[in-house]
């Protein structure tokens, strides 16, 4: 008898079902519970009020990242508005015997940067976190997804989560992107094509030669933004690139355990002929650098294109939303995207705060100066990234150009600490959301790759690397 071909997701799902609860509800084991200070506080209150304990401190990985100041020399207390959650997570971790990665730990960083970066997230595992960008870790081949605070409490108490089986989508990127196009451009382009709700109810497997040719950090960038088109999880089947990346990471298995793990991980791929609920094909060879113009990530176009005109949208809802977006962003429909002046340039976040991102930006910046009216900042995604960047002198390149070289954290992506874009100011940003007021009340955001953000910081207006050279 020949077994039905299975998708990678089905394989991971089947290995994690503890129990079929009722109709479409299953109890799924959680192998890695990532925890951060902002969404865990109330979950521990739920736990403590009912006298329940954390079931598996050994599978729980807390870190402080969101609400910390990123000012040079910061401590956990520097941002006064963040102290409550900083103190809460310290107290909760101490009471429940969980090892916490605090602000000054050399393992510290944005939870989605350190989970793969330290080898906490491993192929074939289930990874959850009270944070919608948890899918990032899918770049190393795990099923990783964001959950709410009630679910965080459930996972803390039971090391499991109730799930309904999601639909499966495969997104195939065919071919390598042109020189000067980055993984961020690939994911923005995709969202522009399929819209921000296309992934609702789905987990996504990214596949094709366009994905295979990427390093792990590029795959992490793509998986990171799965939620920006509505998919809770997105991943890439592990391969030799994955194993090379994970080998010798602090939390990755070692020795014979490593060999056994790799033997298993090699089986983690969708079988030929496996059926997906939906398929998307993207020709990556034609993707040029992308920048968003509106207030959702689907409002995106190539950097050298003209902005759309709302009446061009056939869908009346989309037209209405576009009109609102133009008004909020203070932009004229139909004008060229390139040349829009920017006030702030932000490089960092769980989308683009890794070493390869900083290297790409530094190549553009080297020997140049940030335009005089622009505030430009680099916030490395983790202490390891920061140290690695300093070891090869990237901090010098950025500082000499006029960038701030800051401490690690989520920073201006979510603006829950004191890094924010002022009212009416325009920021070009390597982060993941350009929603109204996302980066601060009445802030205006344009999402782009690190290279494009760097080029725009130098020029003082939106442009890419190629535009800066001309």
């Amino acid at each position, binding site marked *: 008898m020949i077994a039905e071909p299975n998708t990678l997701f089905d394989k991971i799902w089947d290995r994690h079902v503890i129990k079929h609860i009722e109709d479409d509800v299953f109890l799924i084991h959680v192998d890695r519970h990532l925890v951060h200070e902002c969404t865990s506080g109330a979950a521990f209150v739920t736990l403590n009020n009912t006298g329940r304990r954390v079931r598996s401190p050994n599978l729980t990985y807390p870190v402080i990242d969101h609400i910390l100041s990123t000012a040079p020399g910061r401590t956990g207390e520097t941002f006064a508005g963040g102290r409550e959650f900083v103190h809460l997570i310290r107290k909760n971790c101490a009471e429940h015997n969980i090892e916490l990665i605090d602000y000054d730990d050399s393992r510290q960083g944005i939870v989605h940067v350190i989970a793969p970066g330290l080898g906490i997230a491993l192929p074939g595992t289930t990874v959850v976190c009270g*944070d919608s960008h948890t899918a990032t870790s899918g770049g190393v081949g795990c099923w990783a997804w964001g959950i709410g*605070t009630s679910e965080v409490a459930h996972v803390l108490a039971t090391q499991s989560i109730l799930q309904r089986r999601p639909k499966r989508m495969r997104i195939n990127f065919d071919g390598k992107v042109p020189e000067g196009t980055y993984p961020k451009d690939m994911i923005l382009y995709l969202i522009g094509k399929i819209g921000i709700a296309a992934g609702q109810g789905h987990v996504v497997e990214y596949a094709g030669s366009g994905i295979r040719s990427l390093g792990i950090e590029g795959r992490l960038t793509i998986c990171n933004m799965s939620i920006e088109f509505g998919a809770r999880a997105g991943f890439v089947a592990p391969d030799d690139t994955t194993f090379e990346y994970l080998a010798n990471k*602090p939390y990755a298995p070692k020795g014979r355990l490593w060999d056994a793990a790799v033997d298993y991980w090699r089986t983690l791929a969708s079988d030929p002929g496996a059926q997906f609920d939906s398929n998307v094909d993207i020709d990556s060879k034609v993707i040029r650098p992308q920048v968003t113009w509106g207030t959702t990530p689907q409002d995106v176009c190539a950097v050298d294109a003209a902005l759309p005109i709302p009446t061009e949208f056939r869908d009346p809802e989309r037209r209405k939303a576009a009109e609102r977006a133009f008004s909020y962003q203070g932009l004229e429909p139909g004008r060229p995207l390139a040349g829009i002046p920017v006030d702030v340039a932000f490089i960092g976040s769980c989308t683009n705060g890794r070493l390869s991102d900083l290297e790409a930006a530094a190549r553009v910046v080297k020997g140049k100066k940030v335009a005089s009216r622009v505030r430009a900042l680099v916030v490395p995604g983790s202490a390891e990234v920061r140290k690695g960047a300093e070891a090869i002198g990237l901090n010098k390149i950025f500082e000499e150009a006029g960038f701030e070289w800051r401490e690690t954290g989520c920073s201006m992506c979510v603006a829950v600490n004191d890094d924010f874009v002022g009212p009416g100011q325009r920021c070009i940003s390597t982060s993941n959301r350009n929603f109204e007021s996302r980066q601060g009340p009445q802030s205006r955001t344009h999402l782009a790759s690190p290279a494009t953000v760097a080029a725009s910081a130098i020029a003082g207006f939106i442009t890419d690397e190629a535009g800066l050279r001309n």
Partner: protein
Amino acid sequence: MEKFNRLTGIAASLPMVDINTDAIIPASYQRTLKDDPGIGLFAGWRYDLQGNEVPDFILNRKPFRESKIIVAGANFGCGSSREFAVWALMRFGIRCVIAPSFGDIFYENSFKNGLLPILLTQQYVDVLQEYLGKTNSPTLTIDLERQEITLLDGRVLNFTVPPSRRVALLEGIDEIGQTLRFDKEIKNFEEGQREAEPWIYSRPEFAKRTEGAGYAQN
């Protein structure tokens, strides 16, 4: 979670698609568990930069200040996983959101707290929004047991909620307590997994952290 059975109240129409959780409650209202998150509900639209109410915004107007229901466009609650979005709605007084589709995490979070998210076709949402736009008494009755929305003019719209979710809301169950009944199954699962994938449980020990000293792997 809070039980949900039957609700009669003012319904406010927010006829926009893709209302995201940053719009529902901005990050700056999520730095504490001590304040009322209802104050931050739709803060970017409800208040100007000085903190004054924007008189035009529907939830600042009578009778919608007392709204218990929101009728919105597709993809309501997309964006971040913040459960503060559900808490803000509930503390403001909203117990039900009706929309053609929801962000997946928001949808899940709603049930966990006793906020009822009703999926209705775009056509029915249009019917409701048109009705709410014209009537002087924008009141709806939501009956979860019967899965009916009743308008004051007597019209009834039917909806469905997945059976297990409906029962959970009607009874207000303690989900963690329910799962803890399967303690033995979880243990058995973990024993099997420890055999098959021992590396999942091989967490390295790190030297005790001292301030500023980083870590060393043992």
